[in-house]
């Protein structure tokens, strides 16, 4: 159900978009009188499972993403405990949960900056190909690897169109964060800071760092809640999904690409 609603957000024409957004707002008001807002603001109780009433998503404004800045990348590395590539002994195979891309159009010389990370697809190819069931989509739309089950076959890395996943090649020697277990022989990717989301922070390390740098290019929130900041911005701004032709209904939307 939520998926249908999300794909409706892809506008055909401004009129259609306006019509749909009004319809969604009306539905939101009548169906959930304040419940969703409370839930999102305080996080769910720790004994409650993640719910499909929520779909976590991210809006990245590439026009605000500054050239030369990689605060989101270092914040992610610090929060989740992966070694920054520059410090890795084997940079070509070092895990990267988020990458900063600086692209230049060869014709116009125009430059585009954006962070690239797991897009938390609603129809994730990584989950489709996983032979063990280790790759899975949580009810609130976060795509994760269950490391207890992952056998490190790396099919998912091949299947992901966004090069979002990495394999941990080396023993981590107890350098992991207590909140972020990760280890040798398992595939990993951005988790939308699931440990923070479950704690009720309602944001991710990269979004926090970007706001702190003053660029405010990353907005994280519940795309199913019509009153959330991200839903409002998504209604106002024209946004794109990377490789929209693949029809994966991404949880990360970009403006200005």
């Amino acid at each position, binding site marked *: 159900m939520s998926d249908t609603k999300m794909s409706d957000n892809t506008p055909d024409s401004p009129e259609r978009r306006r019509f749909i957004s009004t319809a969604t707002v009306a539905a939101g008001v009548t169906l959930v009188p304040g419940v969703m807002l409370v839930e999102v603001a305080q996080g769910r109780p*720790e*004994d*409650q*499972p*993640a719910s499909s009433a929520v779909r976590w998503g991210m809006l990245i404004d590439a026009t605000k993403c500054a050239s030369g800045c990689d605060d989101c990348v270092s914040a992610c*590395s*610090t929060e989740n*405990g992966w*070694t*920054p590539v520059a*410090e*890795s*002994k084997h940079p070509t195979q070092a895990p990267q949960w988020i990458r900063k891309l600086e692209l230049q159009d060869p014709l116009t010389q125009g430059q585009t900056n954006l962070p690239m990370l797991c897009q938390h697809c609603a129809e994730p190819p990584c989950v489709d190909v996983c032979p063990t069931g280790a790759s*899975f989509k*949580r*009810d*609130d739309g976060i795509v*994760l690897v*269950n*490391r*207890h089950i992952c056998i490190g076959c790396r099919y998912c890395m091949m299947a992901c169109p966004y090069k979002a996943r990495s394999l941990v090649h*080396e*023993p*981590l*020697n*107890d*350098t*992991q*964060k*207590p*909140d972020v*277990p*990760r*280890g*040798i022989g*398992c595939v990993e990717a951005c988790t939308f800071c*699931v440990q923070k989301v*479950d704690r009720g922070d309602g944001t991710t390390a990269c979004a926090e760092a970007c706001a702190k740098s003053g660029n405010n290019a990353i907005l994280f929130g519940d795309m199913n809640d019509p009153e959330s900041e991200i839903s409002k911005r998504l209604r106002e701004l024209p946004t794109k999904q990377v490789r929209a032709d693949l029809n994966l209904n991404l949880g990360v939307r970009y403006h200005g690409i």
Partner: protein
Amino acid sequence: MKRLLALGAVVLTTAALAWAGSEEPAQSGGAPKPVITKATKGEHCVEPNDFMRRNHMKVLLHHRDETVIEGIRTKKYSLKECINCHASEKTGSVAASKDDFCVSCHSYAAVKIDCFDCHSTKPQGSMAMHPLNAETAHYAHKLAAQAGRPVSTEEMAGIAQ
């Protein structure tokens, strides 16, 4: 030789049974008894000791699936909470030295622990208890990447200072 081995096995089994059955292990020969240090926090475990000694792996297994797949983050039976209470005062870890809580029994029972390939052995907390924090994490990574062997807590604490 065979008979000697069989005898050894009998002695070991008896010792294990004696230990499992009482708080104060009987002073018989055989392998050195595991050191069971009292938890640094709390009055008692989430279940009686006898139950936990036999079943901790079952409750942990059940809880891990609920947490990873459904996002249920209750504290009872959470590995993180085990570590919070049982990390040794000396090493700040449940598995850094041979007398630390998890390692001590597991090496006695000859059961390999896989948990700490991925999970941190240290609680989240103070500088002393958990030397890896935001400011120093990168240095520790550097050290771990170059070391190619387990980095001791002392070494990490050294870097943190």
